[in-house]
């Protein structure tokens, strides 16, 4: 398992699969024909057999999600398929790669999924910043206009967001798609029962959907041979930060995090003679691992044992030059900026986290402030509608827990012990706004 496997990205190294003719030359859209011949229930059966779980971060079984959609007799409203292409998790850029390199495989997945869940209308919610990816999708859909045999009676609309991380949360995405501020809804009801326009809705991630055609082609059982128990199939993993080779790599879960960072086929090791200090394993919302914890399988069960997760598969490697308090500040500033403001613990708590961490970095904090930081984390976690605040609090608390000595070294006039850390003084958007608004100090 020390090399890449190509299922979702298959063929993209050899051909320009953004073109319909090239995609059809490698068997593109044949899975769609096969699915239509099988019937919707059989397609869902294959998805269940494949054990595919959502690639957006929540890892929910895809086939089961589809099966929650009520029948027309139970609910006469139209069914909607909504694609979450709002990829915004710091460290993750895999959907970017998929949309850029295999847009037709993704669109074929949309058409198969719409068929399976009896939907005639697909909305692709793509983050506003993905301008070129949007243009590629529009061009690919333009090619399909001349091909009624492929698109059938299904309409696909590409809907651009306008810059809001929270819209990656599925109910916030639905509110945004309905033309509102993108704030999470209370659940239940879940989208399968009352989603877009209060109608039955399936919301799936880009990679999840781009995996559907290969599953239909090879059969669910064959796909489930990839990976390990509870983490079947392949995953496109984004590797960035202090590695020799950053980029997206399609892997079989079970490869160790050590291999992902040091393996010749993957990250290729830490540059500049530095040593690995820490790894964010699944985007900035996940619990951090120390450099000593990387001999762990990159799969759901193995990472769960370390109380962390694959999340949206954004691996960020951090070398020994990085100050963990500065990392905390930058990560906290992100969540402070992106908190939608609906729930008080998240809206206020993320701001408090940043303020306390800044005080620590400046050397103005006492041990009481460190306790206060953990207390604030605890007062966010589990007390909000959506996971934004929870994951921010858990991530920051994990920096303190795993690098406590470094936090202690910042106390009582010590200030930052790092002469030069790459995260020193980085200007975040939230600080840029505060600079203009003159925000009052909290602590």
């Amino acid at each position, binding site marked *: 398992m020390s090399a890449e496997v190509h299922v979702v990205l298959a063929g993209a190294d050899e051909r320009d699969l953004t073109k319909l003719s090239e995609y059809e030359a490698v068997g593109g859209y044949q899975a769609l024909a096969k699915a239509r011949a099988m019937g919707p229930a059989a397609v869902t059966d294959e998805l269940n057999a494949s054990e595919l779980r959502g690639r957006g971060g929540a890892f929910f079984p895809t086939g089961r999600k589809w099966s929650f959609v009520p029948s027309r007799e139970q609910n006469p409203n139209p069914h909607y398929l909504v694609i979450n292409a709002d990829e915004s998790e*710091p460290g993750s*850029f895999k959907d970017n790669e998929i949309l850029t390199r295999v847009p037709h495989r993704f669109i074929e997945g949309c058409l198969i999924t719409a068929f399976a869940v009896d939907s005639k209308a697909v909305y692709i919610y793509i983050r506003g*910043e993905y301008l070129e990816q949007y243009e590629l999708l529009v061009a690919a859909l333009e090619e399909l206009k001349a091909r009624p045999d492929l698109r059938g009676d299904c309409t696909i609309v590409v*809907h651009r967001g*306008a810059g809001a*991380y929270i819209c990656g949360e599925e109910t916030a995405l639905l509110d945004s798609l309905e033309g509102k501020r993108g704030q999470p809804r209370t659940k239940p009801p879940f989208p399968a029962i009352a989603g877009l326009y209060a109608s039955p809705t399936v919301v799936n991630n880009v990679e999840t959907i781009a995996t559907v055609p290969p599953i239909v082609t090879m059969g669910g059982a064959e796909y489930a041979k990839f990976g390990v128990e509870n983490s079947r199939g392949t995953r496109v993993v984004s590797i960035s930060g202090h590695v020799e080779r950053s980029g997206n790599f399609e892997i079989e879960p079970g490869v160790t995090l050590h291999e992902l960072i040091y393996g010749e086929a993957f990250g290729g090791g830490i540059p500049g003679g530095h040593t690995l200090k820490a790894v964010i394993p699944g985007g900035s919302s996940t619990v951090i691992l120390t450099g000593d914890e990387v001999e762990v399988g990159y799969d759901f069960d193995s990472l769960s044992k370390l109380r962390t997760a694959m999340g949206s598969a954004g691996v960020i490697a951090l070398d020994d030059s990085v100050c963990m308090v500065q990392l905390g500040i930058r990560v906290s500033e992100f969540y402070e900026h992106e908190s939608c403001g609906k729930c008080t613990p998240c809206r206020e708590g993320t701001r408090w986290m940043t303020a306390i961490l800044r005080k620590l970095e400046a050397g103005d904090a006492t041990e009481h402030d460190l306790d206060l930081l953990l207390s604030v984390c605890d007062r966010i976690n589990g007390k909000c509608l959506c996971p934004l605040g929870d994951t921010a609090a858990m991530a920051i608390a994990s920096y303190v827990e795993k690098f406590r000595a470094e936090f202690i070294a910042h106390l009582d006039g010590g200030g930052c012990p790092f002469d030069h850390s*790459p995260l020193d003084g*980085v200007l975040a958007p939230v600080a840029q706004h505060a600079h203009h608004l003159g925000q009052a100090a909290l602590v």
Partner: protein
Amino acid sequence: MSTLYERVQEVRAKYPEGTHSAVIPALRLAQEAHGWLSPDAIREVADALDVTPAYCESVASFYDQFQLEPVGAHSIEVCTNVSCALYGAQQVLEAFESELGCHAGETTEDGAVTLRTIECLGGCGWGTIVAVDGRYRHKVKPEDAAAIVSEVRA
């Protein structure tokens, strides 16, 4: 060329009747036409979609890409999230600040360019990512700032 009103109606037709789904696409169209979402631009969107200007403004103010203050003709946005910062995003930002003679969050005196920091753009492995008029530049280094600025100003 079609009017903003006509273009908004085209977008509106993509969504079921009686919904407000066209609000965000319409605000984007208005911003592209006017450069920013001035009170007049917001009113145009509101009129075209039979909603109140207050509703449109409440939506627009939620999203980072909507500009409720005048901005420069061009935008340069530097991602300073964790991965880009590890590649030296702050030094890239400072190079643009000195090249443009303005700070992040400001517009050059001649109104040509607005410089901003921005949250994760989803190109972490290719950092530092700089979006120039919305189009990503990969692996930008401080020494690239001068060429990008003169290209934008050209």
